[in-house]
């Protein structure tokens, strides 16, 4: 006998089940029409009762505090507070979009399509991953804004003293640990490498010295969290027997993403006040930046 040939399932449109079909007119066209009407009417009434904002004329000399990007970018602006700007603003979103686009090339199984949560344990995985993503992101934000240390001190009179001060948030690892001077400027290139002399705000990009504590806080720790925690989540769920297939892994990843994306957007929108301080939404005030006026 010849060796068994295991054929990869070829991606072909499914055969049609004619007897299970209904006519597009009127069955589908009617639904589309109703949905379009519902949205038109709802948005019409929303537009009648609620005006789009129009503030004072643009003025480069008057900076509102806080200045915020459009709401759907506030997740990135929130990340920006916790790490290196290039990483938060460009590298992480770009890599994530590539990963997102690569989903179907990672999970090529045909199983579980066409119905919500079609695979075994899908709902469970989604709930657990979303919950962990939700609370985990909140915890990380609270920790990095120093609120956890503040609450521990304020509510329970717990204080680590100066020796544990470096655990207050990520930034304090840079400022509160006795880093030797040489570690703040480790020369790793014997010559000065300039890539694209900077135009504008960026300034010239030089690659020569490494500020180790800064690198640790702005890049290493955030990368470790952003790559490590989802990996740990999937690994843990795999050890628990929840995640078995690639689809399960994607369910965990996507669930966690949606939850933390939501938390980041919400925090950036409703919980960041003046100076990007973490405040409650009802304490959120915007100073228009008019000189002499708070």
């Amino acid at each position, binding site marked *: 006998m010849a060796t068994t040939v295991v054929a990869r399932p070829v*991606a072909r*449109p499914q055969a*049609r089940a004619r007897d*299970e*079909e*209904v*006519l*597009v*007119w009127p*069955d589908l*066209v009617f639904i589309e029409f109703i*949905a379009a009407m519902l*949205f038109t009417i709802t*948005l*019409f009434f*929303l537009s*009648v009762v*609620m005006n789009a*904002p*129009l*503030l*004072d*004329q*643009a003025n*480069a000399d*008057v900076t509102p505090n806080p*200045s915020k*990007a*459009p*709401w*759907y*970018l506030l997740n990135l*602006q929130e990340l920006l507070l916790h790490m290196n*700007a290039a990483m938060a*603003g*460009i*590298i992480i979103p770009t890599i994530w*979009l590539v990963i*997102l*686009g690569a*989903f*179907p*090339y990672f999970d*090529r199984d*045909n*199983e579980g*399509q*066409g*119905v919500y*949560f079609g*695979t075994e344990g899908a709902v469970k995985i989604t709930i657990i991953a979303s919950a962990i993503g939700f609370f985990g992101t909140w915890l990380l934000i609270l920790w990095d804004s120093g609120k956890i240390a503040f609450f521990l001190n304020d509510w329970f009179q717990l204080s680590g003293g100066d020796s544990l001060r470096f655990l207050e948030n990520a930034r304090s690892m840079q400022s509160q640990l006795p880093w030797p001077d040489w570690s703040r400027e480790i020369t790793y290139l014997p010559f000065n490498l300039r*890539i694209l002399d900077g*135009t*504008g*705000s*960026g*300034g010239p*990009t030089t690659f020569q010295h490494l500020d180790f504590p800064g690198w640790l806080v702005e890049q290493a720790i955030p990368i470790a969290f952003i790559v490590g925690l989802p990996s740990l989540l999937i690994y843990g769920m795999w050890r628990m027997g929840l995640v078995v297939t690639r*689809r399960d892994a994607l369910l965990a990843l*996507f669930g966690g993403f949606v939850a933390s994306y939501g938390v980041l957007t919400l925090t950036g929108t409703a919980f960041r006040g003046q100076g990007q301080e973490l405040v409650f939404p009802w304490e959120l005030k915007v100073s228009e930046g008019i000189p002499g006026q708070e």
Partner: protein
Amino acid sequence: MAVEAPAKPTLADKIYDKMFHNYVWKSIFRTGYPNTPRNQMLVVATNVFLHLHPTRIHRTHVKVTHTYCLGGLSFFMFLGLTVTGILLMFYYVPSVERAYLDMQNITTTVQFGQLMRNMHRWMAHAMVILVFLHMMRVFYTGAYKPPREFNWVVGVILLVLTFLLSFTGYLLPWDQLAFWAITVGSNIAGSAPVLGPKTRFWMLGGFEVGPESLIRFYTLHVIGLPLLAAIFMAVHFWRIRRDGGLARPL
């Protein structure tokens, strides 16, 4: 044998007849309401607006809870934004001297101007949300699986285009909100390693948000990005049909 005389046409019948059975009407709508399955399929197959659809569809796919119409509504938002956007373009000049004044004009003196602007704004927000929810629907129904892999990629590109469309529109009112949001947003783009500052410069047409940025954002917003999005949408919809319609259980 007496034959029953046909009922006399009522006034309503006469009006109906005059309205829908005249020469002009029939030149536009060649047939009446399609009330046989054959005609109903023909309507979908031969109508320029409806022929994106197949003529028949699996019965599970007409359940609203299967898709919540999210993809279709995203497209509908795109159409609505085009209509309201064109109306706004009549009154808006993308120059630093006039942009803000035109916005004030639109909201105060132009008939229904405020309404059009509100519709445009809320529809834009709705579109971003709907596109994201559509992505979630597709993911959780496993509809990216073979043979629909590439259409998922096209969808991710359309998601990015939606963000860009909304972002470029954000600057146009030329108020403080617009100016500083774009300043923050473009600073994020400018922070990219190596290419960041150049990217920011090309995006804004200068070192900071100014007249050049306004015309760039405007042009991208009203013609560049919509065209690009329309092309990807055409591919997206075409691929749905090619890949056998909506995903359904094996």
